[in-house]
């Protein structure tokens, strides 16, 4: 019995060995910032499903925490040594990763940045991402339309990501202001606008705690805030708690970006007025397809027309649609949500 078992195991090993050899021409790597954030979990699921469908060997790597640059560099080196055809990467440090990425491209690998553009953006062969400026613009347009004439007297609180003003945070913030109809001053900088409707900016670290604290701080500056922009849905949930504690949760409009399942549920419950949804699963599956194509005939994916990256799309999720701003319902958002 034992012998039989061992024999079977050996046979299995041999057969998987052969299978691996067959697929050797197309193997790919996925490197994410962490493997615990639901956004990246979804990304990995999308990549794995597509890789299985196309018969590609996929190895996944992740930093231990957000910002863990070293582990990502090691992962790139491992992929090169492994002879992979391509790498999908969500970089923790968008400029420091560039030399490692160059090394991979010199070794003939296709490198696609997912979600977060590298700095400079053309350091990767292509970027598959949400247009974060458009994501912000949609919620800005929606908020202005929802307020109607009152938009001229709005009191706006801006809950941003971090003091270092990472690109994703700036793009969403500035997109929102543009959509709302506020002069941006320098579109690469948050907080330099002089429109009197803006009460102030504060940072949230993108979580509930930070969202609550930042909202409290801005309420102390002006208790009559009636529009709240939030970098993401956890920050929005925190802001809502702060508003609830002073009994103003029903007369303040909160808008956000992400499209995670708890966030979309919060739209349904009236916590968030509208949110812009992004599609990590799509980014990853399209990325795997691009690597498969590249392995076959060396085609490098092309950017979306008029942009310097491949736009994986964004949709406004709300159950209070307004004229002139395209949106999808909460049910549709629920079907497409992640996390």
């Amino acid at each position, binding site marked *: 019995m034992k012998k039989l078992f061992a024999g079977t195991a050996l046979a299995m090993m041999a057969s998987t060995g052969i299978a691996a050899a067959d697929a050797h021409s197309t193997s790919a790597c996925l490197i994410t910032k962490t493997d615990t954030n639901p956004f990246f979990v979804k990304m990995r699921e999308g990549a794995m499903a597509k890789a299985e469908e196309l018969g590609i060997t996929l190895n996944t790597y992740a930093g231990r925490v957000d910002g863990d640059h070293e582990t990502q560099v090691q992962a790139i080196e491992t992929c090169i040594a492994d002879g992979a055809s391509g790498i999908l990467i969500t970089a923790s440090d968008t400029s420091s990763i560039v030399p490692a990425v160059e090394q991979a491209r010199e070794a003939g690998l296709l490198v696609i940045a997912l979600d977060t553009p590298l700095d400079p953006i053309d350091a990767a062969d292509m970027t598959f991402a949400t247009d974060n400026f458009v994501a912000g613009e949609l919620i800005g347009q929606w908020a202005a339309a929802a307020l109607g004439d009152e938009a001229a007297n709005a009191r706006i609180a801006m809950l941003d990501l971090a003091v270092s003003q990472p690109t994703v945070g700036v793009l969403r913030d500035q997109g929102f202001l543009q959509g709302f109809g506020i002069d941006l001053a320098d579109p690469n900088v948050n907080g330099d606008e002089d429109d009197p409707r803006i009460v*102030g900016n504060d940072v949230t670290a993108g979580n509930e705690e930070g969202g*609550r604290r930042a909202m409290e701080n801005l309420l102390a500056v002006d208790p009559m805030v009636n529009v709240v922009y939030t970098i993401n849905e956890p920050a929005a949930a925190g802001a809502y708690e702060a508003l609830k504690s002073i009994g103003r949760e029903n007369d303040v409009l909160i808008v956000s970006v992400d499209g995670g399942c*708890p966030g979309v549920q919060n739209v349904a419950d009236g916590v968030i007025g509208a949110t812009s949804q992004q599609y990590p699963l799509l980014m990853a599956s399209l990325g795997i397809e691009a690597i498969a194509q590249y392995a076959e005939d060396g085609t490098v994916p092309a950017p979306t027309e008029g942009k310097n990256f491949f736009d994986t799309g964004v949709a406004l999720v709300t159950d209070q649609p307004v004229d002139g701003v395209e949106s999808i319902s909460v049910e549709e958002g629920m079907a497409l949500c992640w996390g």
Partner: protein
Amino acid sequence: MSATDDYEGAASGAKSEVAQFEDHDRGFIGRFHHALHVTPALVPLIVLVSAIIVFGLLLGSKFFSPFALTLILQQVQIVGIVAAAQSLVILTAGIDLSVGAIAVISSVIMGQFTFRYGLPVEISIVCGLAFGTAIGAINGFLVAAMRLPPFIVTLGMWQIVLAANFLYSANETIRSQEIEAEAPLLQALGWKFNLGGAVFTVGVVVMVALVVILAYILRHTAWGRHVYAVGDDPEAAELSGVNVKRTLISVYATTGFICAIAGWALIGRIGSVSPTSGQLLNIESITAVVIGGISLFGGRGSILGTFFGALIVGVFTLGLRLMGADAQWTYLLIGVLIIAAVAVDQWIRRVSA
């Protein structure tokens, strides 16, 4: 018996007073130095009151209102509770880097036990508190019985607990609305009440009560004195009959328990159960302790100082935000405060100034 052996007679010529310190006039600086030396919470209290006065003058009623001042209490409640726990460990000349992770995993356990396994919320809360205490006890065991350095033990525990937290929760957030509808007791420390325009939460009351109770215990019970003794000189404490091992284990276990309470308060504050909260609690709690004047070398300082230390950070944060300063300035000033606090501590330690 010869006359030279008259011991009694020799003693009668000696001074009859008991040994004592001479209290010579030190001048103003000297008296001030002495006052700081005997009351370690005085320095942070002075800084706190000055900060409130300065911001009050600069910002007026915007800052100097019951609303804003109680808001500071609400904002520091979690750091305050964790810092009280951290104080205990630092008094024993240790350090606990796992406090934030313990708080977060306790809150996740309270939430997941209720929502994933359908346990009654009271039992889930007890489980969360027990779990926090158990992790603390393991830290204490490794420090006291295995004689491993606290820094290393809690550095490891921090990572273990945080990873376990993410793995166990699958990094899923339990939303505020669900908790409110099905297990409102989880948010109990967020319940609030009004006192003449000032808004307090149960969590704030818990923080203040905890500080008062711990201050009493540290000062007036045998266990409290043992904590100081162990921190000051563990060998001397051992020789004078203190069970150093048991004291250390109980300190770390108590710390774990208090951190679990902080986890409960965290649910009250942010409404939801989020595994990504509290990432900076270890550093923030150590900051409060240091600014509060507790020596990192152990055995010196008071828990009241820690409370003031946490409030100083809160006052600076809100005050600077109200003035419209970039958040980066807060970090800069707090950094300056930390170094100043240690410098003042060193100055106070020089008894004969």
